[in-house]
């Protein structure tokens, strides 16, 4: 199959069950099966003890319906749920869209763009704890870097970043984008490079250049990758812990918590582990449909994660 045809498949649905129906060249014989079982035992053991058992344990911890009555009557939980929704919807979509545009910028292979890419990816390699604490210090009023800059430029004291809920929440979203945009830029960059040049040449002959090329050629070619990456990132971000825990630390007055930090505080600071589990379980009505959609897309398009 030529690379052009391969690339064209990005835009189409194609089942990936082919390989399963391929006639087996070597059916596992007696001794092979023994080897095969021995080889998968480590993974099955890890999966059973650290995924299945904790998941069932968690379901059991959060199974009491009265927990949810307590949860939903807590005004802090309602704030947390709204925060989580805003954090995920705005954070993921802005990040993905910017990453998509930036991957186009990094297609330029001149030496300075390549060096810039090496620096641009550093946030992704650094520990979240380190960079988010640094961002937290930038925002701490009176002596933080942002405040000092503000004073240098305007001659007045800066706004109180972490005492206003919406500014603190914005800071969380921006920090999140700062940390994770490079990773997805790299993914899109890889996807863009897989688009064969002759498609662009053909499009150019048809008059698609600049913005029109972006809208009518590049984006349709990457649509599947974009959708799957967005769904995957949504799932991961729903459970995002370090961003809010370190950047705003829930300040002011726990008004900027998200589900992961709320559950954490309920479980380990206030001593209600079941309530903490219930808080995270309350994300399941959103999480499960997204996961199902994601699985279906992965199946349908054959894009591998």
């Amino acid at each position: 199959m030529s690379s052009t045809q391969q690339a064209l498949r990005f835009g189409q649905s194609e089942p990936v069950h082919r390989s399963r129906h391929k006639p087996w060249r070597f059916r596992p014989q007696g001794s092979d099966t023994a080897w095969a079982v021995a080889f998968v035992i480590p993974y099955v053991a890890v999966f059973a003890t650290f995924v299945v058992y904790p998941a069932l344990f968690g379901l059991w911890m959060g199974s009491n319906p009265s927990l949810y009555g307590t949860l939903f009557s807590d005004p802090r939980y309602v704030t947390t749920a709204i925060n989580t929704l805003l954090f995920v919807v705005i954070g993921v979509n802005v990040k993905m869209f910017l990453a998509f545009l930036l991957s186009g910028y990094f297609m330029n292979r001149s030496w300075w763009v390549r060096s810039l890419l090496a620096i641009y990816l550093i946030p992704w390699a650094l520990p979240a704890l380190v960079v988010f604490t640094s961002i937290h210090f930038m925002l701490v009023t009176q002596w933080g870097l942002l405040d000092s800059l503000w004073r240098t430029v305007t001659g007045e004291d800066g706004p109180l970043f972490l005492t206003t809920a919406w500014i603190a929440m914005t800071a969380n979203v921006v920090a999140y984008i700062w940390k994770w945009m490079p990773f997805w830029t790299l993914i899109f960059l890889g996807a863009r490079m897989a688009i064969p040049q002759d498609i662009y040449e053909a499009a150019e002959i048809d008059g698609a250049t600049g913005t029109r090329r972006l809208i009518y050629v590049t984006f349709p070619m990457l649509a599947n990758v974009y959708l799957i990456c967005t769904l995957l990132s949504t799932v991961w971000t729903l459970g995002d812990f370090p961003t809010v825990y370190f950047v705003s630390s829930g300040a002011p007055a726990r008004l900027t918590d998200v589900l992961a930090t709320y559950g954490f505080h309920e479980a380990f600071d206030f001593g209600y582990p079941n309530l903490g589990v219930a808080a995270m379980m309350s994300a399941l009505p959103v999480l499960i449909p997204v996961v199902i959609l994601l699985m279906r897309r992965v199946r349908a398009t054959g894009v591998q994660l």
Partner: protein
Amino acid sequence: MSATFPGRRMHSRRFYRVQRRFGEAAAMLFGLVLLVWSITPIYNMWMIALDSHDAIFSGTVWPDSPTLESFRVVITEDFWYLENFWHQFGNSFIVGLSVTFLTLLIGSLASFTVGRLRLRHGWLLTNAALMTYVIPASFLAIPIYRIMQIYGLQNQLSSVILALTTFATPYAIFIFSQYGKSIPMELDESARIDGANPLQIYVRIYLPLMAPALVAVGTYALLLAWNEYLYNFLLLSTPQSMTVAVALAQFLNSDESPWNYMMATAIIYALPPIILYYGFRRYMAAGLTMGGVKG
């Protein structure tokens, strides 16, 4: 008539050249903005680390009298939060290397079985891995914390190693199955004709040919283990068992902490992932695109 054409062409060529120069300048300007955006928080870390203790609160953009004093304090363990710093640094290394080793071993064995031995119902295993991959790790934190107590593993490095291996293995399985498809089955078949058993095929043929994927996934697993915070914090709380991440976050327990020591610790803690990143950048990028976009 014939004289006007060359003139016009000259004009348009100059016009395009100017336009291209302009575009390049705009791209460079944008690159500059992106550079500032990327390094500001990192610059902030250095700035705080180079400050002397009482100068942090002066609120300047560059320290008046930069000093390496805080790095000396960290390296000589000269502060009570940092008493076991090098021991904890070692713990981080043990955790990182163990997670890497176990992830590579378990992941490659599993994908070898599914992809090469064609185990019946092997797809169940792949789906199980996919499920683990898409569940946020933090949602399992509270149950895993309780379960580690049941297993009697709290405050032991093995608890973190096992938990993080669990979360790193699914990615390993995907990359390995993806990459494994490029290794021809005929190699296995001819080895079988020569009388090799599956273990020999795995060791002699599969692993050597998988080397690029092993490096990519190994780097990923090491970064994941080194950079992780939540599970380290929950499962390790004694000074002897802590990793650097937990020790570092201890500074945040008090409002009076010496932030310059904290940031110096943070910079030292961030060095291994940076070295790893620059050392294995090519492989990591290959691993990501290997998994991310194959049609």
